[in-house]
């Protein structure tokens, strides 16, 4: 099933890119389409952050991951590079689990 998901993502994401370069722009370039396309990443990434940090199965919990995301926010505020943010959050969560 995982390989099917990999194949669907690969084919779909490529075709979405190719469509952009191939479709006449007037077909998709409308204010409402652009707004939605602009907001979809915002909505999905926000939801992914929330679920990734607080969901455990069907429950909402506050655990070491919450501390990790707080550290990530601080690192983003001081404009740390992507990898520092990602591994800083991991380190914080790992350390709090050791305690």
């Amino acid at each position, binding site marked *: *099933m*995982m*390989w*099917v*998901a*990999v194949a*669907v*993502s*690969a084919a*779909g*994401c*490529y075709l*979405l*890119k*190719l*469509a*952009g*370069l*191939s479709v006449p*722009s007037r077909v998709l370039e409308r204010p409402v389409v*652009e*707004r*939605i396309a*602009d*907001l*979809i*990443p*915002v*909505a*999905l*990434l*926000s*939801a*992914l*952050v929330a*679920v990734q*940090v*607080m*969901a455990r*199965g*069907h*429950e*909402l919990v506050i655990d*070491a*991951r919450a*501390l990790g*995301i707080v*550290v*990530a926010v601080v690192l*983003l505020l001081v404009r740390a590079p*992507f*990898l520092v943010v*990602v*591994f*800083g*959050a991991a*380190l914080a*969560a*790992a350390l709090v*689990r050791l305690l």
Partner: protein
Amino acid sequence: MSAAPSSDPAPADGLDPPTRSAIIRDSLGVGIATGAYGVGFGAVSVAAGLSVAQTCVLSLLVFTGASQFALVGVVAAGGAPLSGALTALLLGTRNTLYGLRMAPLLAWSGWRRVLGAHVLIDESTAMAVTRTSTPAARLAFTWTGGSIFVLWNVATAAGAVAGNALGDPRTYGLDAAVGAAFLALLWPRLHSRRNQLVGAAAAAVALGVVPLVPAGVPVLAAAGVALVAGVLVRDER
């Protein structure tokens, strides 16, 4: 850069050598910085339970970071792989918009378009969209996209192999790294009040339905917030 495809003093694209070098240097800088994220993706992906092979194929063939992180993030949360794929596709729609913007500037057809489409991502678009001529845009797009592609894949393999050797990802906090990666991708998009509100509403909707629906679905439900907001904000402009 001596590795430039054309190193003769008067290149056919009409760009003078200093301009060419500057574009290539900037593109490689972005390429190296971005490609390195691949380590994070590789480690997070195997932590989510994908094999090293699946992880590497994602970077080779999907090649759009946010979509790849989304797929493995949904799977890590216990969601169905196809829910993850659907989330990846929804995130991939923004590349279509980039393509619309880039098509007249790149003016590619045939096999060049087919190849170029694969590296149509956030960074290659950002580096090329501000150029004033087609040769400059093509140069920036190709060097940015090409260098990211190479490094992203090398880094993914390294991260996946290392992640696999580490054992239980929770010991190293890699489950927390996934949320941090999404937040870092989201961060630059939170510039406007509208986006902040949409983000907050989407997070609330997703968390609200976590107890009720299968894993993976909460994130898809949040896409509805983007649809509703996209339609409604029209009247406020």
